[in-house]
């Protein structure tokens, strides 16, 4: 029993640890799928509730005037992100009277209007488009009007709730509602009953807690579509200003060639340093090792100047050659080859093998795991290398790699997170595949020498 509990606890800890470690990864993937306007919002689960805005419970016999703007009556309007009303009641100023979006409608309650007075008004859509009120038949040219004593709203209200005898009567037009519920100020939800073309409910004023709002149910698919999209991936793939395929191919060529040549050079050098004797061998090896103590950034400018003098700016050579001298790889291979018994080399020599044959027949097969490991490490390093590939390529270079290309999505003040994450999702594919195919060698290479 104790063993099972221990096991469960271990799995739980491992699972929690894995989730914590993978959180940035999940965030990246989910953000890549999010709608552009939702990328930095905390919601990741589609919400089926179509929540209306909180409304203050009106006073009994309230004389407020309700203006309602129904976007469905207007054709050729762009996507609406704000509606304001300008009119005689606010001196045609756009500053204050902003309508509140209540599910599919925009509404505003105007208080303090004079009775028996004619008021002209217009709606202002998205800060610049002025329209008359189509729902109101009273119009003079491009302006609508209402007269306060004759009506309390510009049109038939979708939400005609009112207060009478200390009770709140919820009254919603049926035709546009999808199984609505009313939520009160204390977060209690009450289902509405269909009655004579209206959804209704009768709530004592004391239980309403000063405010209410209407909540409808969205279809699951609709809720998902509101939050997630595939468009970021399409935008990355089919964007004439962002040649994704070219960037990807360049990254692949640079990473593969660098890793491949590095492995060859390091294996040969490791063999020489491990099994051959030459003048100042140990001193040279120590000198090379000591160069690892110097931060790589220090070499950046001299390397750039060399590459520039060689005329290698905007070339594959410029991106690949400076990274071929990999001291860490040399150290790794040398240490590994040290573990191969000398008797093997002596036997090969007795059998008449030359240096190349010894290298090919003994070193390469025995060092495959560590070579695969070095290949993988170099590939990953080069695949994500940003700074060097940035500086050896001018902005017009056709040899720019994926990390350099992805930086184009960063703007002066704002970044396109959805596109950046979609690009990053694509960029992890080759590395994931490489790990998948070489994990056997990688694990063997990393653990070699751990057990004697």
């Amino acid at each position, binding site marked *: 029993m104790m063993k099972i509990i221990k096991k469960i606890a271990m799995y739980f800890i491992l699972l929690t640890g894995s989730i914590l470690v993978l959180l940035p990864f999940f965030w990246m993937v989910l953000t890549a799928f999010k709608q552009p306007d939702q990328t930095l*919002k905390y919601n990741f689960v589609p919400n089926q509730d179509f929540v209306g805005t909180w409304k203050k419970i009106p006073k009994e016999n309230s004389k407020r005037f309700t203006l309602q703007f129904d976007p469905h009556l207007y054709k050729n309007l762009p996507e609406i992100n704000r509606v304001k009303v300008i009119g005689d009641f606010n001196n045609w100023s756009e500053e*204050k009277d*902003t309508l*509140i979006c209540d599910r599919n409608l925009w509404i505003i309650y105007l208080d303090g209007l004079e009775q028996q007075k004619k008021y002209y008004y217009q709606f202002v859509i998205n800060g*610049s488009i002025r329209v008359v009120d189509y729902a109101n038949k009273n119009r003079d040219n491009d302006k609508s009007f209402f007269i306060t004593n004759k009506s309390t709203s510009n049109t038939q209200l979708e939400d005609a709730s009112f207060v009478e005898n200390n009770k709140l009567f919820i009254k919603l037009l049926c035709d546009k509602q999808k199984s609505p519920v009313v939520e009160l100020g204390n977060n209690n939800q009450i289902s509405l009953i269909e009655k004579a073309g209206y959804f209704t409910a009768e709530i004592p004023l004391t239980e309403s807690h000063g405010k209410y709002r209407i909540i409808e149910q969205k279809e699951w698919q609709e809720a998902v579509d509101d939050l997630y999209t595939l468009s970021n991936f399409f935008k990355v793939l089919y964007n004439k*200003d962002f040649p994704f395929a070219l960037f990807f191919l360049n990254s692949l060529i640079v990473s593969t060639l660098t890793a491949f040549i590095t492995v060859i050079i390091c294996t040969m050098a490791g063999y020489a340093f491990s099994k051959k004797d030459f003048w100042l061998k140990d001193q040279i090896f120590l000198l090379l090792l000591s160069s690892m103590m110097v931060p790589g950034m220090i070499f950046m400018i001299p390397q750039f100047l060399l590459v520039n003098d060689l005329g290698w700016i905007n070339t594959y050579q410029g991106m690949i050659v400076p990274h071929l001298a990999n001291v860490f790889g040399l150290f790794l291979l040398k240490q590994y080859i040290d573990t191969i018994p000398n008797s093997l080399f002596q036997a090969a020599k007795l059998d008449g093998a030359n240096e190349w044959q010894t290298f090919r027949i003994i070193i390469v097969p025995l060092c495959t795991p560590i070579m695969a490991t070095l290949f993988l490490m170099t590939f990953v390093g080069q695949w994500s290398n940003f700074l060097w590939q940035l500086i050896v390529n001018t*902005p017009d270079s056709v040899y720019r790699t994926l990390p350099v290309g992805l*930086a184009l999505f960063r703007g002066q003040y*704002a970044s396109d997170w959805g596109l950046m994450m979609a690009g990053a999702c694509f960029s992890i594919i080759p590395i994931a595949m490489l790990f998948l195919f070489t994990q056997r060698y990688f694990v063997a290479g990393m653990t070699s020498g751990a057990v004697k």
Partner: protein
Amino acid sequence: MIKKLSMIFILFFLCACDKTTQEENDSVELTVWECYKYEEHELFLDFVSRFCKKYKQKNGKNLKIHVKRVPFDDFVTNIKLMALRGKTPDLGCFDSLKVLEFAYHKILVPLNKLPNFEEKSIAQKRESYISGAYNTNVIRVRGEENLYGLPLQITCLGLFWNRKLFREKREELTAAGLDYQAPPRDWDNFVRYAKILTDSTKNQYGFAMKNSMWFTIPFFAAYNTKYLRWDQEQQNCILGDEKSTAALQLKADLYAKYKIAAATWAGQDDPDIGFQNEQYAMIFMGPWNVSKYRNSGLDFGISLMPRLSRQQAIAAKIIKENTSQQKYLETVTPATNIGGQNIAMFKTCKNKEIAYEFMNFITSTDVQLEWCQKLNQLSINKKTAQILRNNTNTDYDIRIFMEQALYSNAPPKLPRYGYLEADILNPEMELVFKGAKSAKQALQDAAKKINERIIKPFQNPKDKD
């Protein structure tokens, strides 16, 4: 055979890479580097082709302008490396704050010395542009003042306020005599609003703001802070004086004294994220995030920055007690900072006059009007700005920002702005917010570092052009 072929393949990739630029003898070529977003890039290309056609009609010569997009963050790195190679582009459109740095490194052409600079003086040229934006190009390097670029795009901070959060506190705001349908107009009222809107138990704050120097400029500007003084051809940073201290103290008080601002330095959400998630009722933000917020369904308003209240202005000796209300409104402005992009010419440019012609074209009234109308942006051209402000078909948000831009103020005109901000001013200011230093002490320490590490090296340069 396969091995040989693969070797040839590798060699091919390693060697077939030298790219040469073809130059046609019968045409003039210019290269422009820019870091626009896609829709801006497309429109820019359109204007470039229009200019080329116009040039051919006028001069009978072909003009080719190569436009290259550079990631914004890497523009300076790329330019510095190209300068090292002596291959900078002819023109660059980049962060307005970087003009200073490039001018100090002597890689920019002083435009006022070009033969086709038609205006009588730098000041006369200023009349065509929003002065705050234009001034970021007027730089005094080693005693000599020159015009090193032209403004291209302008941004500034405005006050964003969440109408929904204001509505939710309607009763409390109304009880305090504040209008829940309007934002605060001055800093005293701002504090009153923010106190009511703050509920730290719910992680909800009346205000949040980044702590960097750029985001602190509105405070300094509100107090008419002067950052530098010239004493006998010697520049001196004078931060730590009465005005700058009062400005920083005002900002620090929002965190420490009134506790109405989210402390981003203490791990609370970035203002941008917090505002989107309706945690912060007010933030300072620029026009670049307006469409994102609008499309995400946030119910918010934009207004001018708060100005100093009468009492604050009197205390800071900006106005006198008997100053009229009109004079107060004229003197004490809703000050903000300035950002955006400028266009500048690099010294490697071979066709300087044509390049300057293009700079004038791209910043002209008509081009700017089309640019701003299509992209819903602010204009750096004074006439265009006026047309946009007076046109009710211009987005209301843009009209607000166009008005706000009139009160824009540039940061201190010193080279190495990145270092100045990230390594000197920001850390010192953070110590003030954390209560580890007084505002005066922090600014005086910063001024000392600026004088030693930034001004001094450039005042005694090695003669190496």
